[in-house]
C-alpha cells in the first residue's frame, strides 16, 4: 500500500495551528457564521455582553464581570471557528501536495486526429472536452482523458503516490489517464474528457480543501435540531425576564447571555463542521477520494458489501496447500520432487510450491547449475526441470497421465477428485516418468478476512462474494471465507441484478469495480468505489475512487463512514447531556440574590454566584478545544454489534456528558478561587 497522501499530519502540526488561529478570526464574519446558528447566536450575545461591559466601564460601575464573561463568550466563538479552521487546514495541507502536480503544462493539441506530426502547443487550461492531444515521453498529462491510440507506461505518483509506472493503453479497462501524471516511455493520443477546473485533480483538491463542502443530509438534519434547540433555549432565557420581573429580579444581560450560551449546544455546534471535514480527511489519508460527503455518510449505512473474490477475499493467485502422494511414496519425497520441478517456475503458483515444501519439509535445494528449465506450454500443459539426467515434471492431471504408461491407482484418483470438489486445482507430479502424487493448488483466503466478515456481520452488514468461478469452487471458497452469499459465474449484469434485488429490500449496497462493464453496477450501488487503475467510465460511475486500487478497502471505507456518524452522534449526545450540570451551576447563582434559600441547589458548592457563572462559561468554552482532537480523530468504531456499541457510547458520552461538567465546573471554580477571581 502506498503512503504519499497518507503522510501523517500531526494533530498539532505547528503550521496548521498557526494558520488556523488566524483563520479563526476571519471566520468571525457574521455573514459566513450565520450558516452555523448555534455559534452565530453565541457571537450575537458575546457582542451584546461586550457592549454592556464597555458601557459599565464608561459609567465606572463594576465592569469586570461583564467584560470577563464577554471575553469567554468570544473565546467560545473563536474556539468553534478554530476547530473548523484546523480541520480545513489539515485538508489544505494535503491539497498543497496535490497542487504541485497541477503545473501549467503545455499540451500538444492535435489538429488532425490521423497525423501525430501536426500539433500546436496550447496551455493546459485552454483545453476543452473532446480535444485530442499527443503526450510523449517525459510529458505531463495536461488533463483527464481517454486513450485513443498507443501504449505507454505512466507514472501516476502525483495522484496515487505509487512511483512504479503503470501501463496505460487504448481500449480495455486501462484506457483512462489522469491530469498531472507523467508519461515515462512511448506516446499516447488522448481525448480530453474534462473541462478545466473539473478534472479529477481539481475536484480532489477542492474536496480536500473543503471548498466544495456541502452539508450532507444528516448534517442538515442535525443542524435543524441544533437550531431548534437554540431557539427553544433562547425562549427559555428571554422569558426569564418576565418571570424575573414578577419576582422583583432584574437579570443583567451578561448573566442571561451566560445562561443562554451554556444551554445551547455550542459543543456540537462548534465541532460539527470539523467532524465532517475530518471524516473526509480520514478517507483521503486512506487514499480514497469521495466525490461527496453524502457518499461517506452512505458508507456508514451500507447493509451489504459486494466483494470481488480475487484480490479481495483470496490472494490473486492459487497457492500450494498440500501434497498427496501415491502409495509407496512419502509426503516428504513428493514435496521435494514438486519443489524441484518448480525451481525454474517463476509464477506465483510455482513459487508457492517451493515455499510450502520449504516450510513443511525443510526443502533447501537451490537451482542446480546444469539444470534445464522446461517451461509451461499450452501444448503439453506441463513444466519442470531436467538435470543430471533426471527429469521432474508437474502439470495438469489429464495431461500428465497421458504421458504415463499405466493408469494411476485409486488413492491418486480419489485425491484428485476430492481436490476438485473443494474448488482447488490438482497438479500431478512425476519424477523420471514415475507418478509421485498430486499437489493441491488452492485459492488461499486472506488471513484474517474471515474474522473481518464476522465483525461486519455483527454490525449487520452482509458480505457477498462475486466470482467468475463455477458454483462448486465458489461455494467452497465462500464457505471458507465465511461470506453470507456469493454470486458464481458472475457477469456484470448479474452484479447489477443482485444490487437491484438487495436495494428493493430497502438495503444499501457498496461495491468496488474497475472495468467499464462495472460502471452500471457502480452507478447503481449506493457506495461505488472505483479503482484508480480502472477506466474513466468506472471512475465517473462510482462515488469514490480508491487511489491504491485495493478492493479490500471497501471494508475500511464502511468503517470510516460509521466512525464519522458515531463521532457526530457522540458529541451531540455529550453536548446535550452537559446542560443538566450547567443548570446546577448557573440557576442557583442567578436566583440566589432573590431567594437566598435556593443556595441549597448549589450542590457543587461553587464559591460565589459570579464564579459559578464564570466557571460554567469557561467550561463551556474549553470543552470545545478539549474535544477538537476527538472530533478530528473520530470516535473509534468497534465491531461489537449495535446494541453493545450503543450501550458503550451512551455510557461514555451520555452519562459522561452528564457527569463530566460537574467535575470540570467545580475544578474551574476552585482554580478561580485560588486566584481570588470573583471569589
Amino acid at each position, binding site marked *: 500500500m502506498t503512503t504519499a497522501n497518507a503522510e501523517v499530519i500531526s494533530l498539532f502540526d505547528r503550521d496548521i495551528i498557526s494558520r488556523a488561529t488566524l483563520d479563526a478570526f476571519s471566520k468571525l464574519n457574521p455573514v459566513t457564521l450565520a450558516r452555523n446558528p448555534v455559534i452565530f447566536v453565541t457571537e450575537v450575545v458575546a457582542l451584546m455582553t461586550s457592549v454592556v461591559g464597555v458601557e459599565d466601564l464608561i459609567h465606572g460601575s463594576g465592569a469586570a464581570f461583564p467584560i470577563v464573561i464577554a471575553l469567554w463568550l468570544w473565546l467560545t466563538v473563536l474556539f468553534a471557528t478554530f476547530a473548523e479552521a484546523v480541520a480545513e487546514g489539515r485538508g489544505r495541507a494535503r491539497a498543497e501536495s496535490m497542487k504541485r502536480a497541477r503545473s501549467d503544462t503545455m499540451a500538444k493539441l492535435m489538429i488532425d486526429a490521423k497525423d501525430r506530426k501536426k500539433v500546436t502547443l496550447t496551455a493546459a487550461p485552454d483545453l476543452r472536452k473532446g480535444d485530442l492531444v499527443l503526450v510523449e515521453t517525459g510529458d505531463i498529462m495536461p488533463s483527464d482523458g481517454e486513450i485513443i491510440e498507443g501504449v505507454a507506461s505512466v507514472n501516476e505518483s502525483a495522484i496515487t503516490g505509487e512511483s512504479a509506472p503503470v501501463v496505460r493503453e487504448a481500449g480495455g479497462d486501462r484506457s483512462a489517464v489522469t491530469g498531472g501524471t507523467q508519461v515515462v516511455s512511448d506516446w499516447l493520443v488522448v481525448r480530453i474528457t474534462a473541462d478545466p477546473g473539473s478534472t479529477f485533480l481539481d475536484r480532489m483538491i477542492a474536496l480536500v480543501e473543503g471548498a466544495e463542502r456541502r452539508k450532507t*443530509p*444528516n448534517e442538515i*438534519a*442535525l443542524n*435543524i*435540531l441544533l437550531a*431548534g434547540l437554540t*431557539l*427553544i*433555549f433562547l*425562549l*427559555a432565557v428571554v*422569558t*426569564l*425576564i*418576565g*418571570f*424575573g420581573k*414578577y*419576582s422583583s429580579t432584574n437579570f443583567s444581560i451578561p448573566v442571561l447571555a451566560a*445562561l443562554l450560551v451554556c*444551554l445551547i449546544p455550542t459543543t456540537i455546534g462548534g465541532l460539527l463542521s470539523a467532524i465532517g471535514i475530518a471524516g473526509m480527511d480520514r478517507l483521503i489519508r486512506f487514499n480514497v477520494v469521495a466525490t461527496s460527503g453524502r457518499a461517506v*455518510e452512505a458508507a*456508514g*449505512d451500507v*447493509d451489504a458489501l459486494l466483494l470481488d473474490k480475487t484480490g479481495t477475499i483470496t490472494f490473486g493467485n492459487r497457492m500450494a496447500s498440500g501434497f498427496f502422494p501415491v502409495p509407496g511414496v512419502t509426503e516428504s519425497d513428493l514435496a521435494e520432487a514438486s519443489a524441484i520441478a518448480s525451481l525454474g517456475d517463476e509464477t506465483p503458483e510455482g513459487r508457492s510450491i517451493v515455499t510450502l515444501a520449504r516450510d513443511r519439509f525443510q526443502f533447501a535445494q537451490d537451482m542446480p547449475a546444469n539444470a534445464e528449465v522446461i517451461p509451461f506450454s499450452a501444448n503439453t500443459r506441463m513444466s519442470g526441470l531436467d538435470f543430471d539426467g533426471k527429469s521432474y515434471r508437474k502439470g495438469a492431471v489429464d495431461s500428465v497421465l497421458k504421458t504415463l504408461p499405466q493408469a494411476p491407482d485409486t488413492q491418486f484418483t480419489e485425491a484428485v477428485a476430492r481436490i476438485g470438489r473443494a474448488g482447488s486445482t490438482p497438479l500431478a507430479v512425476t519424477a523420471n516418468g514415475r507418478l509421485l502424487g498430486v499437489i493441491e493448488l488452492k485459492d488461499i483466503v486472506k488471513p484474517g478476512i474471515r474474522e473481518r466478515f464476522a465483525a461486519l*456481520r*455483527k*454490525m*449487520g*452488514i*452482509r458480505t457477498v462474494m462475486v466470482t467468475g468461478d463455477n458454483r462448486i469452487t465458489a461455494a467452497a471458497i465462500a464457505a471458507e471465507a465465511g461470506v453470507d452469499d456469493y454470486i458464481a459465474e458472475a457477469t456484470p449484469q448479474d452484479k447489477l441484478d443482485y444490487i437491484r434485488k438487495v436495494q428493493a429490500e*430497502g*438495503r444499501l449496497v457498496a461495491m468496488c469495480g474497475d472495468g467499464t462493464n462495472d460502471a452500471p453496477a457502480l452507478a447503481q450501488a449506493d457506495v461505488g468505489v472505483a479503482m484508480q487503475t480502472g477506466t474513466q467510465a468506472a471512475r465517473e460511475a462510482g462515488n469514490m475512487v480508491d487511489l491504491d486500487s485495493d478492493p479490500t478497502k471497501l471494508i475500511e471505507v464502511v468503517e470510516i463512514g*460509521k*466512525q464519522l*456518524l*458515531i463521532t*457526530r452522534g457522540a458529541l451531540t*449526545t455529550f453536548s446535550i*447531556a452537559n446542560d*443538566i450540570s450547567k*443548570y446546577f451551576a448557573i440557576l442557583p447563582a442567578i*436566583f440566589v440574590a*432573590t*431567594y437566598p*434559600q*435556593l443556595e*441549597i*441547589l448549589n450542590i457543587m458548592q461553587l464559591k460565589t454566584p459570579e464564579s459559578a457563572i464564570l466557571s460554567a462559561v469557561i467550561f463551556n468554552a474549553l470543552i470545545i478545544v478539549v474535544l477538537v482532537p476527538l472530533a478530528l480523530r473520530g470516535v473509534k*468504531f468497534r465491531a461489537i*454489534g*449495535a*446494541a453493545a*456499541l*450503543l*450501550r458503550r*457510547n*451512551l455510557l461514555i458520552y*451520555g452519562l459522561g456528558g452528564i457527569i463530566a461538567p460537574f467535575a470540570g465546573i467545580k475544578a474551574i471554580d476552585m482554580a478561580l478561587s485560588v486566584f481570588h477571581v470573583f471569589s
Partner: protein
Amino acid sequence: MTIQGLLYIALVFALVLGSAFPMGRYLAAIFEGRVKYFSALENGFYKLAGVDPNRAMRWQDYAVTLLLLSVIHFLLLYAILRLQFYLPYNPQGIAGMSPRLAFNTAASFTTNTNWQAYVPEAQISNGAQMLGLAVHMFISAAAGIAAAAAVMRAFTGSGLKSLGNFYVDLTRISLYLLIPVTIIAGALLVIAGSPQLFPNVPFATAHTLDAGSQTIAMGPVAFQEAIKEFGTNGGGWYNANSAHPFENPNAWTNLLENWLDLVIGFGLPIAFGFMIKDKKQGRALMYAMAIILALGCVGTYAAEAAGNPLHIAAGLSASDGNMEGKEVRFGIPASTTFNVAATGTSTGAVDSFTDSYMPLAGSIPIFLMQLGEVTPGGVGSGFYTIIVFALLSVFVAGLMVGRTPEYLGKKVQAKEIKLAMLGVLILTVFILAGAGFSLMTASGVGSLANGGPHGLSEMLYAWTSATENNGSAMAGLSADTPLLDFGLGSAMLFGRFAFMIPILAIAGSLAAKPKLPASAGTFPTDGPLFIGLLIGVIIILGGLQYLPADTLGPLADHFLLYSGKTF
C-alpha cells in the same frame, strides 16, 4: 409514607398496565377494522353521512378533515354556549356565556383540554353540558385516538400513501370503544351513587348540618363523568370536579376513574406493537411512559405524606401528612395518585386541590405536563407525542451506532426533525412566553390568588395546562379575564392543532419511506437501554427549557416554605 400508600400506587399500576395489554390488542383490532359488532349500524351511518369508508386519505386529507371537523364543532359549541339561555334543558335559566368565555370554553372542549374558566354550576346549563360539552368529550377524544392510529399506520409498511380514513377511524373509535365503555362505567358510577337524571331537573336542595340549606345542581352526571375520565377530558359537571361526591362517590369509584383515565393511554403503545407486528417496540414505549408516571406518583405522594414543616413545627400537623385540600374519604395516596395520573394524562381532573399541595408535590404535576403529556398523555396525543420523542432520541443517539438514524425501519431525516422541532417549539412558546408575558401585565398579576413564587406557579401552571391540553388548574387563579380567556384559548388551539398537524406531516413523510429491515447493525429500540434513553430525552429535550421558570416558581416556593416563608 406508608406501605399501604405505596401498595395503593402499585395497585393502580398493576390494574392499568395489566389491562393495557388486552386494551391494546382491542384498539389495534379497531384500527385495523377487525371489530365488526355493529357493522350494520356503522355502514348505515356512513351512508347517512355520505362518507365513502373505503377512501384512503393522504396525510393532508386526514389532517384537513380532522381540522375541518374540529372547526365546525368549535363553532357549534361556541353557538351553544352563547345561546344556551334560549336552548332547551336550562332549568336554572342560566344566561348565555360572554363571547370571550365562550371562545375559551369552546377552544377548551374542542382540544380535549377541558380547561374550565367558567363555574359549571352557575355559568352553564344542563343542556349545554350534555349536548355541548359531553359530545365534545367523545369527539375530541376520538379525534386524538384517530390521529394516533394514523401515525401508527405510517410504520406498518413501505411506500404507504395513505394514513387511513379519518371518518372511519372516528366512527369506529366512538362506536366500539368510547360509547360502550362509557355506558358500562357510567352504570357503575350510578350504582355507586352518582346521579344520572334528566337534564330538565333544576337542582336538589339539601339541608346542611348547621340547619342551612344548599342547592346542588343535578343532571346526567354519571355518564359525563365516565367519558370525562375515559377520554382524558377532565371537565367536571361540578366545579369541585372529582372531589365532588356526586362525581366521585367513594374510594371504589375513585379507583375506577383513575383506571379509566390511564387505560387508553397505556393501551395505545401496545396497540402500536400489534399494528407493526413487533410487540416489544410497543411495550418499550409503554414502559418509558409508566416509569416516569410511577416516579411522579411516588414523588408526589412522598412530598405530601411528609407534611407541612410549618405545621409540624407548630405541633399542628396530623401524623399522616398534608391533608389540606384533600377529601378525607380518599386520603393522601389515592388523592395524589389520582391527580398525578390526571396530569400525566391530559385529563386534568382532580379529586384534591393542587394549589394546596406542598410546593414540591405541586411541581411534579406541572413538570409532567411540561414534558409534553406523554405519561401516557391524552388519548392519542400522548402516543403521537412520545413518537416524536422516540424520533428525537433515535436521531440524537442513534448516530452512535454508526448509521444514519432510523426508527422502526424508517429513516429520520431533515424533514421529520424540522417538523418535530416545530412542534416542540410551539409548545415552548405558549408556555413560557405566555406565562412570562402574563406575569408582566397588571391583569395577569391581578388574577393570582397568592404572591411570590406560589403566584408564579399558578400562572405557569395555567399556561402549561392549556398549552398541553391538560385542563387542570392550580385553583386560586381567576381565569375568566380577557388576557387569560383569549390567551389560554389560543394556547389550547395551538397546543393541539399546531402540534398535531406537523406530526401528521411527519407520519405522512415516514409512511412514504421504505421500511428498512432490521439487522444486527440497527439501533435497538425495544430494550431497557432505549427505554432509559427515551426517558432521558423526554426530560432533557422536553423538560429542561422549563427549569428556570420552575425554579422561580414551585422550587423557590418549596425552599422558602422550608425556611418558614409562605405566600
